[in-house]
């Protein structure tokens, strides 16, 4: 025990927190913590998805009609942008593992650019257009017809779900700013890259939420 202790303090790298015995334990704990956090996120979004599913069944026609107001081309384009950002994020993790600092920084920036592009398209082309068409339920909503109430409910879900998703992306972008700073200072090497890996998990999760949101919101209206 004492020899192990001595060895432990001798090879105590600066990034190993004092309460972990070794870097492996630290990394495993961090990764597990993030997976558990994602589990809570699944339950969080799950509550919204379940509520959505109930009203989708109850007001089939209205949700169908509401979906047709959305611009599925922009939605599809944004899906591609987000999947692309997941690819660049995965590459950033890979270059962090290899200890290649410049490539890591480049791919982090690329991921952020794609993330900002996604939010920009959403804000500038979709939500603004929705506003002008009177589709925002609490800001001059005016949709006529027999299903108007259900269409309004559909748009409530649309804005809550995409809004919550966008909020998660903004948080992810904030974390990436921190990573970028750490990477620029040379804090990562092939022995220590856990923060990049854990942020990657989060980013992919946000991506997957969108993969479910896109068909549920944009595509249920059918082809036309």
């Amino acid at each position: 025990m004492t020899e192990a202790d001595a060895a432990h303090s001798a090879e105590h790298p600066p990034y190993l927190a004092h309460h972990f015995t070794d870097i492996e334990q630290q990394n495993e704990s961090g990764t597990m913590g993030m997976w558990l956090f994602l589990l809570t996120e699944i339950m969080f979004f799950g509550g919204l998805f379940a509520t959505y599913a109930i009203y989708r069944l109850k007001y089939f026609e209205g949700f169908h009609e509401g979906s047709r107001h959305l611009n599925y081309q922009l939605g599809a384009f944004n899906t591609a942008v987000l999947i692309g950002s997941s690819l660049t994020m995965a590459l950033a993790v890979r270059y962090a593992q290899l200890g290649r600092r410049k490539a890591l920084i480049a791919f982090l920036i690329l991921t952020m650019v794609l993330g900002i592009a996604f939010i920009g398209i959403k804000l500038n082309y979709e939500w603004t257009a929705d506003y002008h068409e009177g589709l925002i339920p609490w800001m001059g909503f005016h949709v006529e017809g027999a299903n108007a109430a259900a269409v309004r409910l559909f748009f409530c879900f649309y804005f809550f779900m995409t809004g919550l998703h966008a909020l998660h992306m903004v948080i992810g972008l904030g974390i990436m700013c921190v990573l970028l700073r750490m990477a620029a200072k040379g804090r990562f090497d092939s022995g220590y890259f856990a923060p990049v890996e854990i942020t990657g998990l989060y980013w992919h999760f946000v991506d997957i939420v969108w993969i479910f949101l896109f068909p549920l919101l944009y595509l249920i209206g059918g082809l036309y």
Partner: protein
Amino acid sequence: MSAALAEAPPETRVHYLNADYGIKSWLLTTDHKRIALLYLATITLMFFVGGAMAVMMRLHLIDPAGGLVHPDTFNKLFTMHGVVMIFFFLIPSIPAVLGNFLVPLMVGAKDLAFPRINLLSWYIFIVGAALTLYAMVSGGVDTGWTFYTPYSTTYANSQVMATALGVFVSGFSSILTGLNFIVTIHKMRAPGLTWFRMPLFLWAIYATSIIQVLGTPVVAIAIFLVGLERLFHVGIFDPAVGGDPILFQHLFWFYSHPAVYIMILPGMGVISEIITCFSRKKIFGYSFVAFSSMAIAVISFLVWGHHMFVTGMSVYAALIFSVLSFLVAIPSAIKVFNWTATLYQGSISYQAPMLYALGFIGLFTMGGLTGLFLASLATDVHLNGTYFIVAHFHYIMVGGAVMAYLGAIHFWWPKITGRLYPDLWARLAAAIVFIGFNLTFFPQFMLGYLGMPRRYATYPAEFQVLNVMSSAGASILGLGYLIPLVYLIWSIRYGPIAPANPWRAKGLEWETSSPPPTQNFDVPPVVREGAYAYGPPGSEQEGAHD
């Protein structure tokens, strides 16, 4: 080694309490033991705030016409009593105070896996509590702690937003605490501490944490939607625009029923520790007690419908929920039987923690069995919405969870503070709490059975005798809670110095000195035996040192 340390004069020994001084050393600490004390101070305050409201309600109900407060104020009192006691006392009580203190000690680690997140969760809790207290002093809230729609979204003219926000925020504190415990128990156990050598308190905390992590986000989203509904009138829960108010109840109880087990499961873990120590015996059926915690955690997610038998649900759904609710009694009964079997032929001593533990077993059994009345469809129709419900859940929450919490505080107090409290006063307080509790809540079973509805500021004169009994009991109970507050605070300064292991208990937390050093253990511990390796009576297998 620990015995030698305990004998050293306390002034010369550096431990977590005297390692650093000043307000900053507390507010910026990442030491799990100090964070536990921050929680202890916060929830003790909340307990007495919530308790004061209960006192006012009981005073009000002495008179059938209810003379003390305005009926609207009464509505606010029971609402805020519920909100404060559930979200700001019971849910954080054992996990955030004793779990925080004990989990790293029991697994033999230096700290929780994420010490900074641990501190963050306390700050989040403080923000939530501050919002709720703000709501309270700026007009209060009158929806009932359940925030039922459409009253909470459309009609209530009180501080629903601030309270809901407070509850929403405090939920993240609960999630982060649970997450921290799960990772710590998985990844940071000392060498030799296998899953089935863990103290049962850790199993209970583990099961609790799973519920916290899986359930809390759902109530968060439900409360989030209530807030949006109030702000924008979106109509998800509003029948006037096509929404469904009962959907809110489903979302709410999906969390809030498991939340009942967040409150009681850690208490069950505490009882397993105390019963074994004070009967000097290994627990009867270790793995059954361990797995019953997990079974309760799993089944608790499948029974939420039993809160809604009379609010509109298909008869088949009600049948399924009724059967599932009966199922949850099985693991609970396993625990009670196993504790009782542990007592059998043990060499029992009746120190204060043991009195609380024995009280817990009796009161929890009554609370649990009356729960079966409410899980059966026919009796539930009669009893729903009456004082029977109030009595039932107070037997679980107060008779169960609070008794276990007080038992735990008394059991680990020497470890936490390094001081002993006066045992005679502690036993007296335990007896007063037990008597006061039963006098307060047993009459409420009868009131409910006779048909007195809950949440009313007035009642027919025929119910007065039982109501006066209940109010009298509440004053005894209040006294029972004040006595420990006094002597425990007294003991911090004037109590005799505690040895490392005053109860001759087993478990890693007793192997280190009292109070423990900041790093918890001077030498990283190695576990060589299973939990509760108490020798046969008379053999005096002392301590767990290798």
